[in-house]
């Protein structure tokens, strides 16, 4: 399972980067989202994966014992998910404004516009 997930992570990275390298504004955003998910999966995987043992303390216990999923990467990822949403939202709106205001369709036209100035 780990091997499969590791390959999936690599694939997500590759896809994300490939999309970021495109000229299109929208593909950049899509690429960012995929890349963000990929890194979350990477962190998750590095913490080790466990089935059916969430890091929650049982009803009548005062501490977690036995086999449990690592809570630390989960806390990190939770933060990462939220932050990357902030980034994505900002990027989306920014690029949308660029398109609506400046008529920029792709990144090369930004460069051409700058050179024209």
């Amino acid at each position, binding site marked *: *399972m*780990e091997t*499969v997930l*590791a390959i*999936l992570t*690599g*694939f997500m*990275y590759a*896809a994300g*980067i*490939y*999309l*970021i*390298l*495109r*000229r*299109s*504004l*929208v*593909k950049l*955003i899509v690429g960012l*989202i*995929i890349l963000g998910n*990929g890194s979350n*999966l*990477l962190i998750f*995987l*590095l913490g*080790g*994966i466990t*089935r059916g043992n*969430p*890091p*929650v*303390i049982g009803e009548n216990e*005062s*501490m*977690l*014992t036995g086999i*449990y*999923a*690592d*809570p*630390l990467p*989960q806390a990190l*990822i*939770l933060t990462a*998910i939220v932050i990357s*949403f*902030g980034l*994505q*939202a900002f990027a*989306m*709106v920014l690029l*949308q*404004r660029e*398109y609506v205001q400046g008529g920029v369709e*792709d*990144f090369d036209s930004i*460069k051409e516009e700058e050179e024209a100035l």
Partner: protein
Amino acid sequence: MLTAIIICFGLAFFFFLFNKDFGERILKWSPLLPASLLIYFLSKGNEVRQGALQEFTPWVPEMGINLSFKLDGLSFLFTLLICGIGTLVYFYSVNYMKNHPHFIRFFSFLTLFMGSMLGLVLSDNLITLFIFWELTSISSFFLIGFNHQDKNARKSAITALAITGGGGLLLLVGFVILGIIAGSYELSVLIESGDLIAESIYLPIVILLLFAGAFTKSAQLPFHFWLPDAMRAPTPISTYLHSATMVKAGVYLLARFSPIMDGEFYWNEILIIVGGTTMIYGAVNSIFKTDLKAILAYTTISALGTMMLLIGIGTPAALLALAAFIIVHALYKAGLFLVTGAIDKTEKTRDLLALGGLMKHRKLLFAAGLLAAVSGAGLIPSLGYHGKHLIYESLYNEHSSFLMVILGLVFLANIFIVCASFLAGVKPFTGKIIAEQKPVNPLSMFLLIPPLLLGVGGLIAGVFPAFIEKNVVLPVYQSLSGKSIDPAFHLLHGLDFVSILSWLTIIFGLILYFFFKPSLHYQNTLNHLSKVSSRNLLKELIDLVKKLFSTLTHLLQNGYLRYYTAVILVFLIILIVFRMYTGFGIGFQAVEGTSIRFIEGVTIFMMVVSIVMTLYTDSRVVSVVALGGLGLGMCLLYLFFSAPDLAMTQFAIDTLTVVLFVLLLRNLPLYLNKVDRRLNIKDIMISGIFGAIITLITLEVIAVQSSREISQFYAENAYLLAKGKNIVNVILVDFRGADTLVEIIVLAVAGLGVFSLIKLKMND
């Protein structure tokens, strides 16, 4: 001494604060500054004759850097030049620079220079000496480029700074090595540990580095070309910096080191060859110029070459001749420069071909020019006569055939110098009146008195040479050799070989002067000849460097975002692969992992399909849907592997993302299908390799058992300390609560950004 230097620096800064009117009124009195310094140093004359005066103020004693100053014979000579010529130059500039928009700035820079130059010749610490050395280069840069509206002036200033500053840096390296060898940066200590230095294997390097600094500063071949360019500076500056004082800093430095370096590793040979070549080159070039200042610049180069030559010969007689020649040169060359400046100011030209017959209206100025020219030519009874006689004598009396050849060269160079001196000092005043000046511009007393004083002073000193010899020349020799020597100046020498040579020089020189007619033709021929010169070489080098880096910049900084990303990624890949090869072996350690369940397989398959869809689709809607699918897949994965909180968050965020995307979709551009196949393959390779690397690293890391200490702490204490059962939540809101607060702030800022971007109405 430190006080004197601090006063100069302080005033230089203080002048800047003046407003124009007040500054012009008060700066009229600025000649008092060098004059009072002159009096101060003169008053130390008696003590200098008996031995050196020393001052010591610790600065960074841990590193051996101290503000230590020493006034001995050699420094005394230079301080007199700096303050003496300085007084006249200040006096002259008050009128010369009148009505210049940057009148105040001029005096500020001039004072800065004077302070640095004094520091240079007084410093007894190599590091402080270096600092003053570079300060003179910097103030010279400002003063050459003083008329900064002129493109050529700026260019000349940069050339001068590049050459002298660059040489200065090499010099610093030499100083540091010297300091390491001798264990001290104090010059007086170094001079005494001559044996230690002579034995060091680094001596050749030190000598070459010292030469690099001195030859650039003193405009020796092949670094000479900055000096003629520097003539773009106002004439008082050319007089002061580029003839009388700053360019002699290299001579000063080498003279300072000559007691320990004399006889070591080609010291003498290099000095004789470089100095001799420069001397001949400058002398020959000087008479072919038609610009008065260019003539003077080349004679200065020639004179500096002669000084280097004398240090190279290194005999007591040569050192005496050197000391005398420095004074002679400063006096007559400053005189000629100041006369030229006065002509330039009144006639508005310095072109030799456009000047003539000025004698009619400018009798006194002519007298000054004539006196300077006579001294430069070495006619009896001027001071120049003694200078030249000493040089000839020092070469002749050694009775070595090698030095006789050198004597021949000096003789030759001097013939040209005689001619050039008369060209600059006499030629403009004689002959037909070419440009009839009506009305004749009045000549201010301020412009007349300084050159006249220099001329008369040279004459008086020539008639009574013993005074200067006893008080200035002999102490120089004493400071270099530690021995005293008998006076050698005589007004009338017997009819020996040297005297005959002296007279022959003047006769040949005057013959050359009377038969040689300056014209542009020679100058052009000469320019033609010097196509392959060090100046062009430097220019080519600079152009090459510029081209190289502009190509490199265009290659790396072409303005396309994706290109930057690609460059960064490629570099990252190279780094990681390199580390993988050298750091840890890549072995596919079998991961004893959990088996795969059907539902998990389906989820992963769904994710892969989603990703492939985003890659291949032409429709924006399809890619949004695929993104939704991918997010859902992530959500399920979290759920399968014991992370319910993550699953919930992912679900909520993913939904939000898709909603936002769909909302904005209408206003987002369509997918473009501008695919360059070659580029595409390159991108696929980059992203593919990067993805593969990530997979490899992940597998490596999973195989290593990681310590779970921190997680264990949270697992054990979440309930006991924080009264929470969901550990992830407890970490976020309790243990790392402050971090979460910051995260909320980040998100809020992003939200504000999004909101204001949506609401923003562009005015244009």
